């Protein structure tokens, strides 16, 4: 039943994406139409999570499918509230595409079976820990979309007013996500102390999460100094999130990690490469755009 609800939520997100694009082209469409579909999807997903919670008797964050579904529900809510506040259909469309893609991956690429909670996961700290991650990652993900759009506009020297707005949105989203990320790190350490006697094991996953925290801490410091280069950290931060969330399972050190469940043998680096390649491509495209625009300007000025 919960799977059916999640699938329905996915279709609603796709509908919201369609409506959001319509809103981008046709501003006469009231913002409540796309955001209504989005909210309905998020509520359905919330109901699915509650159903699964009851079925499992525990917070449903015990498998990758459940964690991604939890994250997607958080992301949908963050998109909804940010869209209601800032009304930016283009960025919301991109974020919805990211949301639909991620949820499809969870629904159709992951094991959706209910799994019994293993003893180590039977801690209330785990529920707070994972929920914190989900909210921070949702917020950072939307921030990533805003920062990517902002960088593209900046490289093309278009819409300075919109650039200002996107920069403000990105900052607010990081500001919202950062306390949750901090809480995630803290509760993770408290849980580890309770379950395995030590709050920090120098584990690959732990450090990957800490790197994300460091990146956003650096961003907040640089933004405070009005350093425009800080917006690049939105892309770096998102790459770090994907790495900490999924990518860390595919690195050679994953076999020694307590947080990843990999089969013995040589890990395959190709999935990691594929996971990281969109971010590298995006960065290259953004650089390329700047070069093209600036090159064009230089050529024009020379001719004059």
């Amino acid at each position: 039943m919960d799977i059916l609800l999640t699938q329905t939520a996915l279709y609603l997100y796709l509908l919201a994406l369609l409506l959001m694009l319509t809103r981008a082209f046709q501003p006469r469409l009231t913002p409540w139409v796309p955001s209504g579909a989005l909210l309905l999807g998020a509520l359905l997903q919330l109901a699915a999570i509650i159903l699964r919670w009851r079925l499992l008797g525990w917070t449903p964050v015990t498998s990758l499918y459940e964690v991604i579904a939890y994250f997607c529900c958080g992301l949908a809510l963050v998109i909804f509230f940010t869209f209601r506040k800032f009304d930016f259909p283009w960025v919301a469309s991109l974020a919805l595409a990211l949301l639909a893609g991620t949820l499809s991956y969870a629904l159709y690429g992951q094991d959706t079976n209910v799994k019994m909670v293993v003893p180590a996961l039977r801690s209330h700290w785990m529920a707070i820990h994972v929920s914190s991650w989900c909210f921070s990652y949702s917020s950072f993900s939307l921030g990533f979309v805003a920062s990517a759009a902002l960088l593209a506009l900046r490289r093309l020297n278009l819409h300075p007013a919109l650039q200002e707005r996107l920069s403000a949105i990105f900052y607010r989203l990081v500001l919202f996500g950062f306390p949750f990320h901090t809480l995630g790190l803290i509760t993770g350490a408290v849980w580890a102390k309770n379950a395995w006697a030590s709050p920090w094991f120098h584990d690959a996953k732990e450090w990957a999460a800490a790197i994300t925290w460091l990146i956003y801490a650096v961003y907040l410091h640089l933004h405070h100094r009005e350093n425009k280069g800080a917006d690049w950290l939105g892309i770096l931060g998102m790459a770090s999130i994907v790495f900490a969330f999924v990518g860390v399972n595919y690195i050679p050190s994953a076999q020694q990690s307590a947080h990843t469940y990999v089969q013995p043998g040589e890990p395959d680096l190709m999935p990691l490469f594929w996971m990281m390649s969109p971010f590298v491509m995006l960065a290259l495209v953004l650089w390329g755009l700047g070069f093209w625009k600036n090159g064009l300007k230089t050529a024009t000025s020379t001719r004059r």
Partner: protein
Amino acid sequence: MTFAVILLSLLAIAALVGVMWKDQEAAKEWIYHAAWFRGIFVFLICDLILAIVVHAEFSRRYAAYFLTHAGLVTTLVGFSIGGLFGMEGYLMLDVGKHESRLSDLNPKTNRLQPKTPEEKLPFEVFLERFYIDYYPPAAPYLLVSLADTKKGVKIPLDRGDRLRSPDSKYKLTVIERFASAEQKFIVVNRSDKARNPAVKVRAEQNGRLFQGCLFAVLPAVPVVETPLLVMEFKYGLDEPAWNKQVQEAHQSVAASFAFTDEATGEGNVLPVVFNRDQLLGKTGYRLRMLRSISGVNVDMATKKTEELMGPPVNPALRVAIVSVDGRKHERYVFAQPPPPFMERKLRGPFEKLKLEYHYAPPLGRDFAYVMLHSGDGQRFSVVSLLPEGKTQTITAVLGEEKIISASRKRRNAVDRNLNGTTDENLSLPRGLRIRVQEFLPDAGVDEKVAAVPSGGQPAIRIRVEGVLGKDEKWLMLNAERGIEYPDRNLTLRYMQDPLDIRQYHSDLRLIEKGKVEKRATVSVNDPVTHQKYTFYQIDYDKEHGQWSVLKVVRSPGTPVLFTGFGMLFLGVVGMVLTRGQKLSRKR
């Protein structure tokens, strides 16, 4: 601020190198535990303190700023105190034995070795018992798989639900319900006109169905017995006698141990207490109960016995007996005794000493001991041992279904996914019809599959019908072979997943100068602290459950660390709430 940004970036880059390093032990040596890496933290602490001082002022923004930065410093100091003054080690404990020596984990071999120089706890730790909690068994399911695509679907066998078909073209029907993790009983029929009144009862337990007649006079009770449910029918008792029966039933749910000296005829009942010498009346024997096990496996080739853990098969106690003349003997006492000649063999040198073990399931586990009584012929009373260790009495009315332990959560067996592939594209032969024809909770195979009184396996008779023909077969639960549909591609099997582990527990006694200071149970995520030492459940004997490994930690930095965590979180939240405000800077 620039310096802080440089330091944070350096940390991130160094950590990334550490994360990507294949050999994590080398990463610890060259990065995380290296002086240069710690040096960055020292600089960071200095920079944070400097930032706190430079921006000092009376404002809400500064309060948040202070908490964030001072919280980070406190956290790092807390980690350092733990690293400098803390202690950690491992205790390898055998069931029924003391230990105080600590061991170290060799990261290369991943094995425990005694610490050098020897390190001991200031008290002894005695492992009274180690045990595992299991989740209730999952519902059985029908496994439909295709050989060519290696895909399959699990179809749960639940009543009421129309079976979820992998394709809407196929109809799947269940005739009888037999998948439930709840214990239920229903009094179906009663006869009190005959000379031997009887009731017909049906009990469902962990997905298995047991039914039969209970007679008041003959044959000897109990007639219907499930692994966890014993039913007796007492007819025509008056109120006091009935109350007495209920009282006795309450008492009977506790484990007990009986001895009889056949030479003198002396006998009595003993409580089940481990690792304490008990005198067997005036017989002169002393008995010590060493441990309880769920069964014994005997390797017929080597004649070696292997003790079993997990759900009780034939629960037993391992006991040591010492006679007056100092002769010693260790033996098992089974809840279901072996045949008389074997039982005599077990007695060893003490041929006249008969020992009996009345098994009651352990408290707080998934098992309950239940007795059914009848008072005046209208009421049926069930006395059960609840998971929390309390006993309760439920009165049932004729024909009404009662759930004895309703708190158990039913596990679902969702379809989808077999061997990592989803069933979304599973395409079964066209027009295939699968129908469960019959179910036997206790079936055995002689010449053909037939119901047996007890000790059998659940079985279903299943019919498959399609364009390639039809087939009908009995499928035994978890049997290797299933129905191979005429094309040999489609296979049907009747399956139930093994029990999942819920929790591990070690019952400890902490002994100082021969006196038990504390009794405690250590479980995963539930450590126990004694005299600044905290014990964590880390590992256990996966085969026989005869040893348990605890991690012992003394970490004086923990209060500082947790204070730092609290300050840091409050500070970060404060920074968000006071956004837009600026701090002054003193030079």
